């Protein structure tokens, strides 16, 4: 609660929280909010490429679908992708970071080397290659993104664990004979949690962007999914005449990622009140 109040005191962070909450609400109630919820699937070619009007506030796309509805319906997909990718990446990265940070010697070295290997592969290229692994599509793209994002969690948790391992309270716990697993789970993990949460928030923004890029390159979400990146890709050949086609999905990406980043910054400030700062 105190953390929330402190978060709200920073107008920028509060804005971020507001955007993310707004997106959450939109995502949850998307089918009721969208004026034409069936436009997630249905095309009406007679009314294609209509400019914004009272009937279609954001205009229609190349298959005559209401863009407002599709932007609203796309929110859910974007958030689902972001949350599940980051969750999966955390599930891989956090244990690796914990173990590598706690243990000395070859295991730790090996784990961090593997992490480095994954870091050395350009993310998008790995994601593209992996997308071809089973078959292109949102599911594969999500697997690919999780497989490329976990090293960031491993790095973060590794650093935190290393820092906390040498701290006095861990020495004290070890001295009274607490097993390492309990120290890691009950003491180090909660202490590393703020760093993980911040990393996760930023990671969600990042994931949405990368997933959109994959969609843009044609290996992410599959049509007729109302994916924002896909919409921008589809809109390209209608620019600049049908400006509304790319503008609104593009803005939706911008806004949600912006909200997540602002929130991440705010959380970092709360987690680290020594100094109100914002790091990438």
């Amino acid at each position, binding site marked *: 609660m105190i953390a929330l109040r402190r978060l709200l005191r920073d107008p*920028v962070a509060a804005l971020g929280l507001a955007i993310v909450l707004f997106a959450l609400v939109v995502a949850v109630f998307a089918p009721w909010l969208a004026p034409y919820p069936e436009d997630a699937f249905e095309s009406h070619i007679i009314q294609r490429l209509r400019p914004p009007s009272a009937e279609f506030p954001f205009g229609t796309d190349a298959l005559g679908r209401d863009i407002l509805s599709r932007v609203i319906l796309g929110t859910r997909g974007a958030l689902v992708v972001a949350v599940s990718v980051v969750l999966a990446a955390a599930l891989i990265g956090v244990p690796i970071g914990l173990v590598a940070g706690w243990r000395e010697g070859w295991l730790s070295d090996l784990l961090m*080397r*593997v992490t*480095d*290997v*994954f*870091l*050395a*592969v*350009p*993310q*998008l*290229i*790995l994601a*593209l*290659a*992996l997308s*071809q*692994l*089973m*078959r292109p599509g949102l599911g594969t793209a999500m697997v690919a993104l999780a497989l490329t994002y976990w090293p960031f969690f491993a790095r973060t948790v590794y650093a935190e664990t290393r820092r906390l391992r040498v701290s006095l309270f861990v020495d004290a716990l070890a001295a009274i004979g607490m097993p390492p697993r309990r120290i890691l789970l009950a003491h180090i993990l909660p202490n590393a949690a703020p760093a993980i949460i911040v990393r996760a928030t930023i990671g969600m*923004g990042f994931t949405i*962007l*990368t997933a*959109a*890029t994959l969609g*843009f*390159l044609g290996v992410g979400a599959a049509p007729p999914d109302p994916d924002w*990146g896909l919409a*921008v*890709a589809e809109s*390209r050949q209608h*620019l*600049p005449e049908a400006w509304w086609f*790319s503008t609104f999905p*593009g803005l939706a*990406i*911008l*806004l949600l*990622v*912006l909200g997540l*980043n*602002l929130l991440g*910054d705010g959380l970092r400030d709360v987690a680290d009140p020594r*100094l109100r*700062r*914002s*790091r*990438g």
Partner: protein
Amino acid sequence: MAAYVLRRILLALPALFGLVVLSFVLVRIVPGDPAATLAGDAATPQQVEEIRARYGLDRPLAEQLLVHLRQVMTGDFGRSVFSDRPVAEEIGQRLPATLELTFCALAMATVFGVGLGLAAALDHNGPVDHLVRLLSVAGLAVASFWLAILLQLLFAMDLDLLPLRGRIDVELGPPAERTGFFLVDALLEGRRDRFVDALRHLVLPAVTLALPGLATIARFTRSGVLETLQKDFVLYARAAGYGRFRLAAIYVLRNAVTATVTQVGLLFGALISGAVAVEAIFDWPGIGTYAVRAILSADYKALLAVTLVVGVVYAVVNVLVDVAQGLIDPRVADTSE
């Protein structure tokens, strides 16, 4: 220092080895059938089998990996399954384009990012600070492919200020190839017109690519400077009479950029990734488009080489970053030996 650099290089080697194995395993599971692609549209199944045998694609995977490792050791990346040309040569033709683009973007991101970050920190919680904070967060939030299209439409189509695509004007032609970096080659042959033209072609893609990096660097510099400003030695330096400018621009910045420099290394990976979309839109003939092409046509030799080359470049950049850090902060080089 020399020992430190050597150690950094040696540490990078196992990672590169891991990369070779990892990329091989990943790429060879790609389902697109290179033999079928190679055989062409009108191929019979029997032709496909012959091609499979000729390229060793019918051997067990482990054997293919060994062959691959031996080839990589000798710098032989094989021939592209797709174009039947040496992959090393194809990449050699394309790598400079990507490096020219990414280095320019990196330089742009660093110079402006550090400047903005410093300005923001010195105006902590002031208007400049808020503006830079918002801009840097927005810079990280913009989808580069979207930005690229908007920049094209605005600066090339509407305003007619900058070229739309490519590296150099078709009529002007590329400069005589020495390094493959058009800017450098144009200077070497003393052609100002080509230099200017290559530079104009660089602007839009480099700006698009630089923006997220710029935002990251600005954020890190800002927080680094803020953190450093809290340090006792800054207080001491002020007490001892250091000048304000010298304090901010040299004394504090050098400490503050250590975190930033690490970011520059990590950013390079992101830049190469970003280059994939940016190169495609701006028609930049680099390895980003090459990689996409390789993936789409299941050209696994090319893809393997691209991953490895990018990995090597990434490793080199990060060794350079480590060296830079050692130069900036002498403690780094001392304690890790």
